[in-house]
């Protein structure tokens, strides 16, 4: 039972449906930036996206090849573990189903890897079934580098650190293993509705 914080009333928002905001989150209209190091700047002419297993590349797409795949506009809410949520964000993206199908990929988990060395782990069940995308556009414009451009993972049903910025591919793995933030004590799965922020939550 939490103690009452003397004199704290809080500020409930009446313009946001409470069922859209996971526990412990607040809604922002900004788009805050959080990353562990400098923002990489990658030319789309040099960019590729690869799906690999055990060091072998199953398939690689150039920027042009990726952009030639069927595109979707995705409107979704996103939730950052640092407690901000942003509603109705609009992305231009390629479904991860399309990419995984073309690679003929089968695995239990994936480890997404990015420019700058960032990694994050996800069950394959969470990056298939119309739940995950490779996003290259935001709000009608190319995705800015500080928000993960030229392309980032978009897995909006999990905390946003799972939506790896500057993503360059997926490594298929049979057993779950921690990525970057997961190594530093963040939750392996990261469901905002169950408030899985840190290991053990």
């Amino acid at each position, binding site marked *: 039972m939490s103690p009452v914080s003397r004199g704290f009333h809080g500020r409930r928002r009446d313009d946001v449906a409470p069922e859209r905001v996971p526990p412990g989150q607040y809604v922002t209209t900004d788009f805050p930036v*959080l990353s562990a190091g*400098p923002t990489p700047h990658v030319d789309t002419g040099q960019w590729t996206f690869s799906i690999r297993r055990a060091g072998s590349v199953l398939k690689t797409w150039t920027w042009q090849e990726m952009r030639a795949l069927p595109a979707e506009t995705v409107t979704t809410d996103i939730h950052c573990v*640092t407690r901000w949520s942003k509603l109705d964000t609009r992305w231009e993206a390629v479904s991860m189903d399309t990419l995984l199908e073309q690679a003929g990929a089968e695995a239990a988990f994936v480890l997404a890897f990015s420019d700058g060395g960032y990694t994050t782990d996800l069950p394959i069940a969470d990056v298939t079934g119309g739940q995950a995308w490779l996003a290259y556009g935001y709000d009608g414009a190319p995705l800015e580098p500080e928000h993960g451009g030229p392309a980032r993972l978009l897995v909006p049903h999990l905390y946003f650190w799972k939506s790896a910025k500057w993503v360059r591919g997926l490594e298929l793995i049979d057993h779950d293993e921690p990525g970057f933030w997961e190594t530093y*004590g963040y939750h392996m799965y990261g469901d905002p509705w169950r408030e899985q922020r840190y290991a053990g939550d």
Partner: protein
Amino acid sequence: MAGTKVRGRLSGPALPRTTLSWQLATVTAVRTETATVRTIELNAAEWAGHRAGQHLDVRLTAEDGYRAERSYSIASAPGEPPAITVQRLDDGEVSPYLTEELRAGDELELRGPIGGYFVWDAAGAASPLLLAAGGSGIVPLRSILRHREQAGATVPVRLLYSVRSLPDVIYRDEIDGYDADGVSVTYALTRQQPAGWTGHRGRVDGALLADIAWPKSSPGDDEPVAYVCGPTAFVESIAEHLTKLGYPPRRVKTERFGGAGGP
């Protein structure tokens, strides 16, 4: 750590994967740092200690059960009780309460410490440190400076602290006290400078950073490591300049806080 081979992967020592429970803390003191900034010192019986640079979560509960949670950098050194330094944001929900209403004897809930990348340990430290703070981004860097001092570490430090004006400098006396002791302090005053100010005016630029950043030619273990904390625009700019000055990206650790909708 054994794991999938991903070339150039960022990694470090894993943290023990223990559950972080909410715990009760009592405010022992509220200190005025600037017109809008307070340091809140806490006593938490179950606090297991922290490393310099980590943060903690605070949870407040209103009488009707409504709750608000926020994350704050830890301002105190390892070995000290937890403390946070909070800047009041006019449109904030939590920061006006913490900076204006809260007083010694009040209780709140916290959990932590959290984070294991933007941290610095005095034990075994050999690399020179470049610390760059924008505004209240000084908070985790102050924990690093305090830790270095208390541990008797001798690694040289350069601190670049960008603020609007001198009265906005947080921990001014403490920081100036470090200045002679292997810590070189440079203030950049972006909005307002006192009469006779000979230091930097305006935002930090490439020329100022080139003066302050450690030379990139230092070999091996003595290669400097940078900790950059502040608003997004500040961190983006500093990190990009440092990369251009030859810092390998993984020697530039960043912590950013977002826009006006933040804590």
